[in-house]
């Protein structure tokens, strides 16, 4: 029996445990925890790449399945399964955290908590992506809240004390709704059913409405869509640590993935008539956030607006009455996650230098740091659709499909995409503009050689993906 999928969950979990067991930061080498995490993520990434090699890339659907007996009363067996789409997401998340570990400033307070929670998050999110039955799917969906609460408690801005309570309550409500729906399905089918058959459950009556609306709300609670938009934007604006910022930016990915997995073929008939209303809400949220990003001067907020708009674009793509987009969304998400990881660290680096140089604004700051400037420019261009990454090609297909489905919807989806793009470029231009640069005191430091090489390597990797999305599979 294969244990690869279990291994992908278990390795970061062990890493998290070992991180907690490393010698105390204050008295010993601070690199201990980082070494553990880098090794853990490297080993896990290797296992993921090996699992990819077992796949037939021409084939659709789940290709590896593992079954584990859990409870006899009530009878529950857990099913893990992976297809190319889920493996792509796992690879991108693990790669992102590996890049983040290398990029990170090693002198952070409470690094043990940070790294252990990060690895726990990676373990649970890997589990979420390979969960192939409704109960294990719920377990991983809800369990991610634990490391998130720890990280947000430890690293969110101290002035926003109520964020934690709100964030946790939103998460608990979402998880609770999903749990109730899943148990109703479990009782109806008298068994734990595979995830891809959940969309075809026919219960009938008000209960079916309740199930789908609960599932819908559960996933929406992880996406920054009205009325759940507040907590995620409040958290993002209060987090200074780039790793925690990255993690909070990955929360919507869970909602998105939930929609993809629960409705693999089409939106269940029960709620299909409400899809246009939902699309309008998505578009309004996209427009609203993109316009705010245009006004807001904070580059981190602009990045958050960018990620939100793109997540919503993928969400609208999922709701299109076609099956062909799923693979495109997978390829696009792969580059998208890598790009936002590097962007969040580059933006953090610029912010730190701004603080070091005691600058009021970051205008012209990139003139002091040529390597940072190059990397930031390339990655911002890549993020908004420079045709060197699969993001360009796959997003093009998704947007074309939306236009094909509804012209007005297409126009309103395109508009916020353009606005966030302009907003990012405008800020980049300001930061690169020599007119603002003052060479009086250059106390900051440019991107280190290692980080620069990583940025370039990632860019080359993404370029390969542009020509062949699964170039790393042999």
């Amino acid at each position: 029996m294969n244990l690869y999928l279990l291994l992908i969950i278990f390795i970061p979990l062990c890493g998290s445990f070992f991180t907690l067991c490393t010698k105390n930061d204050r008295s010993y080498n601070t690199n201990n925890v980082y070494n553990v995490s880098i090794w853990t993520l490297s080993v896990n990434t290797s296992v993921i790449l090996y699992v990819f090699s077992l796949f037939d890339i021409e084939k659709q659907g789940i290709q590896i399945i593992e079954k584990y007996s859990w409870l006899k009363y009530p009878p529950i067996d857990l099913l893990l399964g992976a297809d190319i789409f889920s493996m792509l997401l796992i690879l991108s998340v693990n790669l992102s955290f590996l890049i983040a570990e290398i990029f990170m400033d090693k002198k952070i307070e409470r690094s043990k908590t940070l790294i252990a929670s990060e690895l726990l998050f990676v373990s649970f999110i890997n589990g979420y992506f390979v969960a192939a039955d409704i109960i294990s799917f719920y377990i991983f969906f809800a369990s991610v809240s634990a490391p998130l609460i720890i990280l947000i408690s430890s690293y969110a801005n101290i002035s926003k004390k109520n964020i934690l309570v709100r964030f946790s309550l939103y998460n608990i409500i979402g998880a609770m709704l999903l749990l109730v729906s899943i148990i109703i399905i479990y009782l109806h089918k008298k068994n734990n059913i595979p995830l891809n058959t959940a969309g075809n459950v026919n219960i009938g009556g008000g209960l079916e409405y309740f199930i789908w609306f609960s599932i819908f709300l559960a996933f929406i609670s992880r996406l920054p869509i009205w009325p759940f938009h507040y907590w995620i934007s409040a958290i993002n604006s209060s987090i200074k640590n780039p790793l925690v910022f990255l993690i909070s930016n990955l929360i919507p990915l869970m909602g998105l993935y939930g929609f993809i997995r629960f409705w693999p073929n089409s939106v269940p008939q029960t709620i299909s008539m409400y899809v246009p209303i939902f699309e309008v809400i998505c578009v309004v949220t996209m427009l609203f956030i993109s316009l705010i990003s245009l006004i807001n001067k904070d580059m981190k907020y602009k990045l958050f607006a960018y990620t939100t708009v793109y997540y919503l674009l993928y969400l609208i793509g999922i709701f299109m009455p076609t099956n062909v987009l799923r693979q495109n969304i997978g390829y696009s998400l792969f580059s998208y996650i890598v790009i936002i990881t590097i962007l969040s660290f580059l933006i953090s680096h610029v912010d730190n230098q701004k603080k070091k140089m005691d600058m009021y604004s970051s205008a012209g700051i990139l003139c002091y740091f040529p390597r940072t400037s190059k990397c930031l420019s390339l990655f911002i261009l890549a993020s908004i659709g420079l045709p060197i990454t699969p993001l360009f090609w796959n997003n093009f297909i998704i947007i074309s499909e939306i236009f094909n489905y509804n012209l007005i919807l297409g126009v309103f989806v395109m508009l916020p995409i353009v606005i966030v793009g302009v907003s990012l470029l405008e800020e980049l231009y300001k930061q690169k503009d020599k007119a603002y640069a003052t060479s009086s005191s250059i106390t900051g430091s440019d991107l280190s050689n290692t980080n620069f090489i990583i940025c370039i390597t990632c860019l080359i990797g993404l370029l390969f993906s542009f020509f062949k999305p699964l170039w790393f599979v042999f």
Partner: protein
Amino acid sequence: MLNKILYALPEISLLIGIIHLLFLHLLSNETPKVYTKTARIWLLISLFFSILFYNKSFNPTYFENTSYTLLFKCLIAFFSYIMLILSSSWFSVENKTGCRYLILVLSSIIISNLLLSTINIVILMLGYTLLSYINYRLLDISYDKYPSEVGPRYIGTSSIIIILMFLGFSYIFFYNNVMDYLEIKQLIASSHNNFLLYISIVLMVIPFLYSLGLAPFHLLAEDKVGKSILPVSHYFALITPFIFWAVIIKLNVMFISSYNDILSSAFKVIAIMSVIFGATGANARINLHRIYAYGSMYHFGIIILLLSYFNIASNFNAFMYLLLYMLALNGIYAVFYNLKSHGDFFSSLTSLSGISQTKPYTTRAMLISIFSLIALPPFAGFLAEFGMINELLKEKSYTYLALVLFFFLVLAKSYLEIIKTAYFEQKIKKFDTENKSTLFITLLSTILIVAISFNPFNIIEKIKDMFDVIYL
């Protein structure tokens, strides 16, 4: 005769333990560690004999030991053992021997063994009365640190409750001349419409609901854990609930279920009241012990709600809910023993301010226990929540489910406030270094909370097998 003595060894060994402690107290002046160690050794010996003679009893007319009773005896012994280790550190810090406390705890365990095994309402009545007296003596331990007005209030209200219980008992015993559980069941079957019999049964159950602090009998529930010293609070939060729930579940299966058509609604009303009062009360308190006391009221409300369905599956789910909740609460109490500053143990919510900066391990342990209480997987509390929702949906009790979940959110808010205080507030106290044994117990409790949800060695099925013996 020898057989009877052998089968009574679990209780005899605890009695010897009490005498041993008394001798130690009279003849030498030992440290609290020696006293607690003595109590723990005798507790283990008692447990050993309980396991050895798990299905034997020294008087089969009045007592019946089964796997069900063994299950609860093991749980009570396990949680008591942990409590004794932790209390040792408290008594050491306070410079007290703790002998009286230990003697009372061992006495309480003897009574609990008898209450669990008995199949006779005379023993039930006497056992409950004795246990109430022991609880009163425990509440009386204050070392002049806290105003001990709880003790007199407790004995006052308990007396009224015991009188009510006696009235119920009198009707069943003197009027109908019945005292065996099975005979009562037959009596109910033959005169189901007898209103006085129904009232008598209700009067026999109310004392247990009162002792568990379920609404509207929650008069002293928060004071018992909120105003007493930490080891006594620990005892009331973890040990007594096990004793009383074990008895209620047994009575439920043995004869209360005969009135399921009428009592089901009464149980549901009590459950919903407890859920509402528990969740809202927890949000209105700033003392940690009181917050958890109200939390217990909420969780016990759910247990009684599950018991109100009077079926095998819901009874087991109620038991599992109790067990998993107690595991989480055990973790919380282990943390309480680490919360001290300049030798003073504290219990106010604000005292937790900034604890995450100075006590990362204790804070993490507390977080894990809270995660379990708010039913986040992969912690033990998730299994309890899963079982509860599963049962309510099976019974199509959608309104109850909606109410329970809504107030669960309200309760969760109070738990999240604790996390918020620990992480976001500025440090206002310098915390003392943790005792090694309390740290070990904290770690053990945390591991248990995580491990049980993985169902190692099919432990849940084994527990179910032991529990289901009650139906034989």
